[in-house]
């Protein structure tokens, strides 16, 4: 069982959280008429081996939302931040601030 650090509650067991979606879903602009762009955002995303920016919710805790930078093979969690901060990360997980 992985341990994820909720920004509000501290480190908690993974079963208290639910993975919701990939970070790329946050780029939506409400009401925009760029239909294809919006559909691509819904259906297309990279599933590379490596670090992903994942959106999790602390559903069985404070119900807060966090962005977790996690390696999908080793499960190493590099970072977990409350949604609101905006790190940009490349495919190798290198952060560019």
């Amino acid at each position, binding site marked *: 069982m992985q*341990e994820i650090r909720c920004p509000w509650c501290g480190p908690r067991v993974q079963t208290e959280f639910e993975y919701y979606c990939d970070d790329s879903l946050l780029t939506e602009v*409400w*009401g925009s008429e760029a239909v294809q762009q919006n*559909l691509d955002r819904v259906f297309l995303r990279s599933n590379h081996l490596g670090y992903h920016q994942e959106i999790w919710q602390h559903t069985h805790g404070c119900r807060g939302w966090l962005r977790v930078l996690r390696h999908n093979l*080793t*499960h190493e969690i590099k970072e977990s931040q409350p949604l609101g901060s905006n790190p940009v990360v490349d495919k190798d997980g290198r952060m560019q601030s």
Partner: protein
Amino acid sequence: MRMSQGGLIDRGRILNFSFNGRSLQGHPGDSLASALIANGIRLVGRSFKYHRPRGIFSAGSEEPNAMLRIGPEATAEPNTRATQTPLYEGLQARSQNHWPSLEVDLLSINNLLSPVFSTGFYNKTFISPRKLWPVYEKMLRHIAGHGRAPGQRGPEQFEQCFSHCDVLIIGAGPAGLAAARRLASTDLRVVVVDECERPGGWLLKENTSIDGSNGTDWCDRITRQLSAAENVTLLYLTTAFGFYDHNLVALAERLPSGAATFSQRLHRVRAKQVVFATGSIERPLVFANNDLPGIMLAGAARAYLNQFAAKVGQRMVIYTNNDSAYRSAVDLSDAGVDVAAVADLREAPHASAIARLSERGISLYKGARIAAHGRRHLRSVRLCHSGSEQALQLDCDTLAVSGGWTPTLHLHSQSGGAVRFEPQLDTFVPGTPKQATVAAGAVNGLHGLQECLDDGERAAVTIAKRFGLVTGAPNGRSIDPSNESVENQLLFDTDCPAVKVVNQHKARRRGIGASGKYFVDFQNDVTISDVRQAYRESYVSVEHLKRYTTLGMGTDQGKTSNLNGLDLLAGLREEPVPKVGITTFRPPYTPVTLGLLAGQSQGAHLSPTRKTVLHAKHEQAGAVFDFNGLWLRPRCYLRHGETEETAIGREIRAVREGVGMTDVSTLGKFEIQGADCAEFLNRVYIGNMDTLVSGRCRYGLMLSDDGMVLDDGTVTRLDQQHYFITTSTGHAEHVLQHLEFLLDVLWPELDVNLVAVTEQWAGVAVAGPASRKLLRQLAGSDTEVLESVPYMGYASIELEESGQCIKARLLRISYSGEMAYEIYVPAHSATHVWELILNHGPGFDLQPYGMDAMDVLRIEKGFIVVGADADGRTTPMDIGMGAMLSKTKHFIGRHALTRPAMHESGRFQLVGLQAVNYQDGLFEGAQLTRLAGDRGYGASIGHISSAGFSPLLQRHVALALVRDGRKHLGQTIYSQDPARACPTPVGVTIVEPCAYDPEGARLRR
């Protein structure tokens, strides 16, 4: 045979136990294996495939042979290692895998048929003729498998707990104890676990001396100190069986629980740092007939002597490629066993090792190769050696073998740590750790006691540094450097490296009678020829070798076989061992019962059960319950003498003709407040919600961003900036998360405060033509308010009864298609409201109705259930709600609905079905086809998504998703459900979904 003195057993007490019905005795401190050895029992089982006689091979969890059934017959646990079972009073043990008896096993005919049962035979035999497969299967089920599962549930209790600590030390041998002692002086929370009944690791099995006292005394002293320390917890008989993500370690603790049964506790420990002081396991040698009873690991032979005062035999030969086995010669000879000889594969053993032999007059044969001989047990050993051309025969009943030591890497490897091949030791040692761990002691390939103690201290210092602490030497005493003595050294320096195991079987076998089987894996009966055969058949990768031969796949996980098999393969491939690699280590390290993993989550308690606040009322009314997700809800209410079918029919009639009441508390409910609520609702639902006025409610359909129906429910405007939302029971959690994501992540700028109030408000639906008349009796001074509530309207009212009042939210909405009201009250008042309504019921023939009746009522009306009739592939157009889609605003899912495929023909559309023959049944899940007959059925064109029997229409009603259904109204198709209720095709006509009151006149009265 038991020695008259020595050992760590309590000779003052006697424990009675039985083996295969024979009464025997042992002492506290014995393991079952040591007690059997002390009683002279040499034959303890039959091997898996060939049913060869087997004896106890080791003294630890690596045991491949001594797998017994322990406990009373009805609840006996099979495949339990005798070496890991502490002896207790009344223990009943039985051997396994033989018929009719252990001594006379007719299935040993398999041994003669071994050419048939060679490796890979699973994949090659019993294939044809296919007709015979049922015969083969029956036969295979009898002969395959090892051990028999008990028929009854045993009395064992399983507990679980979650623990946290700063440092978890796995292994309480010298390195583990040294590390613990060092860390005890800090403030860190330390937990030490060991799989044995008492701490000490190899200190218990060897004659050693530390700080002037013998190893076991030192160990006792340290353990007492540790027990007294507040920050240290010691757990024995506790196996760390799995290492998981982020330093989570699973421990299986066995606890004595009064009577002769052990209970177990599962610990899930999150440790900030973990020390692997897991030791090493002795490696066997491979030679002809190396599985005979009487052949065991050299370390085990002296462990039984030193720890349990049990002599493993009368006359012993030792066969080894390293110095550690010489200790067996010394210890056993000093105890009075006739050690006939040491046969060493090497040409030049260490001088001090040789000296100890000559002191005792034990012959040494260098450059030796042996073959074992005997039938039911070892009788003699024939060997050739470099000192003579002649082979010679040594009669003996025990052969102690040692091929070196293999570090116990399993947990380190499970944690993701790398492994490194150490050529001088001819084995793998832990490499770079992946998680917050450190390895210490024999697991690092260290074989001197001083080295191990130092390594444990070093690990403690490293760990302390990671916490930013400095450890002082505990009690001012450090471990005496004068522990360097010959006594304390398992292996000496590497001038005389241990000879590679694989070579020894290939050597010339001059007259030693070396035909027979050379076992690599004892538990699964895998021999050298099996490995060679796999290689010949091109299974050359180590992963294929494992799976094709089943080497290392037994419950011992290849602890005594993996490395030898790997060595062999490397030899065949002519590559170095590290190039061949090792297979993945997976938990559990030793077998774990499923009961331990399940804990209390068994049967009905696999998931939590949710009950509404009206549950007791339903029970009183005779409800039959069923699960709707986690909720326990009434299916129907049985009156005396009724069947469920009659009850449901009665309830449906009540609602259509009189009045019924049902518990709708399980619906998801939210309250939203704020200035932007209308805008938010507009974005979420497909219909225009901003036109909803206070005091009105509206049906709402919401989509996910792929355009498919997510949920349906109602939106009620309580006030200008205050709304009350309901969702379906099954999707409440999902919708909550969806809305929270929108508000907290995507649209934080919207002033909308969302609170889940599912449990705050209980709900009762009162439905039927007489519903308003009934509620008039309760409305008291609010009667006018009640009368004026329009269809799809809302009012806040107070229900009155003998001077007491309950505030309620009254919604006039209907799921049944009759005039209906949903009354929501704060949960703690719900039972009063239920009583209140019931008390006024008799005058109107009020009846409670359950889920099954509710289902038929809504199917008659063509109302959907999201999840059944809208299954995630269904758009609003597919279910006939295309007209609800707003044309003036953007909402979630709108873009996805513009895709061409959403409007093409061939989509599954919601329709009703009516059987051509009124008596025919329609069942949920049945497949629909265009054809039925001798020509076959063709492709499925849809399925029945909801169905039930309507007593009013006197036939089955159903909703279905049919390809292009709306274009084919009036046509006949076929429904069938061969696996369940409906084996022959039934003709059905496609009709409109609503079968009853399509204008909805009854709703609006």
